[in-house]
């Protein structure tokens, strides 16, 4: 059983990264940490996909380039989303003076 775990270590690492990023995006109240969680989640998915193209080392022949090409497009999307999110956080900071989501909710609650 342990050697099966070692053989699939890349999938395990990818899922671990995905879960860590997912959890951070959902629960952490600091907005920039949410953006970092977005990146970690996407990194996990990229690791998952690109490791699908592995073909077994130098004696195994050519690696499959298709998953890498897919993740290429996904990387562009992740970068754009990060840039967009950070720009919006900068503007939110100018309005509220804080980047903590709970503080923003409480300030919004007492302003209404």
């Amino acid at each position: 059983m342990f050697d099966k775990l070692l053989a699939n270590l890349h999938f395990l690492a990818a899922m671990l990264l995905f879960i860590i990023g997912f959890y951070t995006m959902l629960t952490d109240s600091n907005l920039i940490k949410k953006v970092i969680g977005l990146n970690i989640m996407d990194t996990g998915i990229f690791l998952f996909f690109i490791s699908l193209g592995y073909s077994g080392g130098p004696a195994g022949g050519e690696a499959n380039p298709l998953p890498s090409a897919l993740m290429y497009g996904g990387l562009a999307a992740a970068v754009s989303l990060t840039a967009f999110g950070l720009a919006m956080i900068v503007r939110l900071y100018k309005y509220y003076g804080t980047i903590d989501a709970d503080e923003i909710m409480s300030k919004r609650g007492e302003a209404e």
Partner: protein
Amino acid sequence: MSDIVLQTVIRFLAPFMQVYGLYLILWGHNSPGGAFAGGAIIAVSFLFGLLIPGPQSRFLAWRQTVQWLAALGGMAFLTLGMAGILQGTAFLTNFLGQGQRLFSAGLIPLLAASMGLLVFAAVFSLVAQLLKEYKNV
């Protein structure tokens, strides 16, 4: 941080980064790389200078005119794709055929070059706009 060390290092490093970015763009069909990575690296080579008050800050004024480069890159991509439609086969057909080494993929390095221009313009104007607002605040 108007440090003389940083300014000198960036002056020396920027051409190497640009050559590497061009290499990534043009060889994207044969080795890992491609338009996004290459365009981002070329943009960063210009953007490093913006972070330091010094002679490279003049690039901040380019952030509006760089949008013309973005339009040029995008329109070049669409025009190259339309050539396939005009030929009758499909969008984005590879009508240039296969040659040697760098030209072994026909249309693809041209598409990559146009996309690299677009990505460069996009990343540059994005970060330059944010830096301009940050400096004004």
